[in-house]
């Protein structure tokens, strides 16, 4: 197997090189080098960019911007990104977290993509060489995307409004049965005024739980009041089947874990 690595100092030059057939961007390499090791013949060259701005984390005015090459470990240890730390820590073991990038996670197929589930609930903007777009639009079109992702940007959530849960069988590190992130705004007496919920492993890539979001509006987070939201949780999902869990199992346990996230 031969694989050529091309290194560029600017995103612009890398983008041009990525247009060639068989060329793929190299982030941390945890998926793409693994594919090469497994003999993926569709890969003939890897393209990487050394521009240090891709590894920059900027937090100001309640907003965060993470360069595409920022690693899960860098997010997990950043003092101003505490809200995102559980999602970053959910990715792999320590060595994987030192390598796995934010940009690569946006492309990770289920059962991976736990961090992207959090970004989807936060309504992040994905910045690419070709312009910016909401993460939902990005995820829908990602298979056809040939542009280099340079950053993601999102408003930092208040600690009490953002929740994340990854369910796995092996502790502390295991592949997801599913993951859930929720951004909830509530009145002072606890009534939900807005809800944005994202699921991982409930489709081939992270997805919004729009029916559950709608059913939560006007509710307090009690077992009784969230029941309609849990009943609606499975709407539109098509969970994956893999060695960790079958689609049936994932569908069965989704409302249980959503309930724990909301009430717990």
């Amino acid at each position: 197997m031969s694989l050529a690595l091309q290194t560029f100092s600017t995103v612009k030059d890398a983008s041009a090189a990525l247009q060639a057939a068989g060329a793929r961007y190299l982030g941390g390499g945890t998926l793409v080098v693994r594919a090469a090791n497994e003999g993926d013949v569709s890969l003939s060259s890897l393209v990487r960019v050394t521009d240090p701005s891709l590894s920059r984390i900027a937090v100001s005015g309640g907003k965060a911007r993470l360069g595409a090459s920022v690693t899960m470990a860098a997010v997990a240890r950043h003092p101003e990104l505490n809200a995102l730390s559980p999602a970053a820590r959910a990715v792999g073991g320590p060595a994987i977290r030192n390598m796995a990038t934010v940009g690569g996670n946006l492309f990770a197929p289920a059962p991976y993509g736990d961090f992207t589930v959090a970004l989807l609930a936060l309504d992040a903007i994905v910045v690419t060489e070709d312009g910016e777009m909401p993460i939902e639009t990005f995820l829908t079109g990602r298979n056809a995307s040939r542009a280099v992702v340079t950053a993601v940007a999102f408003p930092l959530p208040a600690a009490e409004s953002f929740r994340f849960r990854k369910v796995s069988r092996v502790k502390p590190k295991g592949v997801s049965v599913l993951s859930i992130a929720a951004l909830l705004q509530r009145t002072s007496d606890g009534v939900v005024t807005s809800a944005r919920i994202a699921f991982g492993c409930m489709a081939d890539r992270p997805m919004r739980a729009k029916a559950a979001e709608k059913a939560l509006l006007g509710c307090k987070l009690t077992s009784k009041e969230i029941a309609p939201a849990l009943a609606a949780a499975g709407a539109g999902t098509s969970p994956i089947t893999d060695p960790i869990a079958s689609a049936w199992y994932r569908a069965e346990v989704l409302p249980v874990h959503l309930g724990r996230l909301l009430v717990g």
Partner: protein
Amino acid sequence: MAKVPVQFTLNGSEKAEFVESGTTLLNALRDKIGDTSPKGGCHQGTCGACSVIIDGELRLSCLTLAETCGGANIKTTAGLAEGGVLHPLQRAFLDGFATQCGFCTPGMIMAAKVLLDRTPNPSREDVVEALSGNVCRCTGYEPIIQAVLSAARANSQNVA
């Protein structure tokens, strides 16, 4: 296939080699440089046997391309013993029966070393977390966890 130069520091000494583009660091270390302490268990990132320390951080050499390590400072288990004296972690693994077939051991020791470098007195939980990317098919993990804790105790006694 064109060969490309790679140059880095391995366990304190300068290495320069020509490798085929796309060669993993694991293959470069084992097949070119002759450091066979990192093991190739899965080449998929799942076993941790290939773990090495690059610029102070634990990484998987099977998923790292050698060309991306230009100028890096790389440490492997082969470089731990000094003057024929085993590193406290190596000593603790031997004394505590934390190594059986030994295939996972160099990766376990690298993962434990980055932990102890940052957290000299780790809790059991810290150790479990630090080793969570490393698979052992022999020991059942408990002796490994105990060995890391005992190496930490030995270190702190030496310092005190």
